[in-house]
């Protein structure tokens, strides 16, 4: 076993160029993609002297993260050296398993508007609430509401026509939701109103009102995860794509290079002084395949994606910043593994 593993290497890739290309690239051709599935079996390339098994040290050596753009609620970064199942698990956790707070129970005190109670309750539920969910517990079923697991908002809007004909409160907006602190919640969030729990956006229309119509409800926020209902999902989108890699045959030069350059709607190509064309901005490529549509260029341009180079983008709905969301997702992944481990150990005892 030890002799065999000495012979296997993981540094140089596969000796066969075609196979190495299959292992590390997803090829994009006119009819569609080729080799979209990675090969993960540890012994897949044993006969070629390549070790395909998992090794933490070499994973650490190859792994890197590079942030492309960062705003508090929009993060785009490159994750290099990780395989699709891991990247996908993180994406799935971000969408469905990072908890947030959302309105779950709505007590309707008065509703003389045109919107039915249940539709109103659903609309209220979907409003993103800006509050750190880590400060709260999950509400256990059939338990009383406590300050540890529930936030209360009240919504009281009355539409009126003033003497001069102007209509006030023609639209009930999310900013009309008033936080009602219970027990020690006031101390928990301090005195600055910007730190208080509130809807992330002030201008989300909840309903239109006509003069004389009133709405008075009490909303109870609970903590839960996106798998239960999408209103608890902390992200607008969490998605990834693979980095495009575009190689042009050196024979494309001069006039032909200019034609190819003008074909690309994303302006990915640049032409060197020598007249040689190359892909200067592969990140901008949308894989529209316009450059390989012409039969003349099809054999000259190689459109590929790098299998272990992910461009991850996380857009938050506002409860946590995108950065915090990714950190939470990784912690939840570990926590999920821990729960399975404890459960397995319990079975054995």
């Amino acid at each position, binding site marked *: 076993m030890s002799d065999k593993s000495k012979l296997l290497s993981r540094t140089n890739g596969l000796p066969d160029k075609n196979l190495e290309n299959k292992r590390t690239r997803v090829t994009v051709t006119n009819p569609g993609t080729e080799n979209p599935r990675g090969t*993960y*079996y*540890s*012994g897949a390339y044993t006969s070629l002297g390549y070790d*395909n*098994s*998992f090794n*933490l040290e070499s*994973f650490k050596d190859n*792994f*890197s*993260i*590079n*942030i492309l*753009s960062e705003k508090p609620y929009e993060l785009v*970064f490159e*994750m290099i050296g*990780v395989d699709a*199942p*891991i990247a*996908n*698990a*993180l994406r*799935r*956790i971000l969408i469905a*398993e990072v*908890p947030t707070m959302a309105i779950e129970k709505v007590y309707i005190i008065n509703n003389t508007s045109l919107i039915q109670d249940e539709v109103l309750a659903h609309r209220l539920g979907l409003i993103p609430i800006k509050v750190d*969910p*880590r*400060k*709260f*517990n*999950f509400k*256990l*079923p059939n338990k009383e509401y406590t*300050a*540890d*697991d529930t936030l209360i908002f009240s919504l009281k809007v009355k539409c009126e026509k003033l003497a001069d004909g102007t209509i006030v409160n023609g639209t009930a907006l999310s900013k009309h939701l008033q936080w009602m602190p219970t027990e020690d919640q006031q101390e*928990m969030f301090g005195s600055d109103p910007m730190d208080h729990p509130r809807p992330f956006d002030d201008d989300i229309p909840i309903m239109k009102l006509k003069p004389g119509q009133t709405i008075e409800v009490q909303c109870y926020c609970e903590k*839960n*995860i996106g798998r*239960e209902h999408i209103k608890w999902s902390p992200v607008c989108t969490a998605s990834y794509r693979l980095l495009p890699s575009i190689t042009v045959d050196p024979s494309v030069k001069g006039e032909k290079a200019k034609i190819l350059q003008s074909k690309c709607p994303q302006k990915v190509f640049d032409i060197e002084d020598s007249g040689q064309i190359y892909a200067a901005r592969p990140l901008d490529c949308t894989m529209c395949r316009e450059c390989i549509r012409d039969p003349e260029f099809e054999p000259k341009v190689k459109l590929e994606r790098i299998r272990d180079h992910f461009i991850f983008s996380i857009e938050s709905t506002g409860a946590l910043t995108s950065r915090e969301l*990714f*950190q*939470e997702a*990784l*912690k*939840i*992944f*570990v*926590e*999920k*593994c*821990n*729960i*399975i*481990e404890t*459960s*397995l150990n319990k*079975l054995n005892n």
Partner: protein
Amino acid sequence: MTSSYPNSSDACNSFIPPSFNVNKVEIISDRPDCATFVFTDEDHTIGNSLHYILMKNPQVDFSGYSIPHPSDNRMNLRIQTKSNITSQEALLNGLNDLKNISNHILETFNQTEK
């Protein structure tokens, strides 16, 4: 997992809804080297990543997972090992690898600045 916030209790951890925390795994097996693990309330997130990491283990001959029915909250994971370790050990190794990967990504991410 203890939270740094004073008002959250251990009984109710801050990450995973408590209902997802009971009777997570069942084992169906009559030999030590192969088993089917039946997970409750798990899906492709854990299923595919465990399948992947198990396939990457040279001591594992076969691993595969399925979700038999979309309205059942069950996920089956089948493992067959090369008999120098048991399938349960292989699963524990896999979980450990996943945790190491995740921790390393977190560490790298925390060090990365724009």
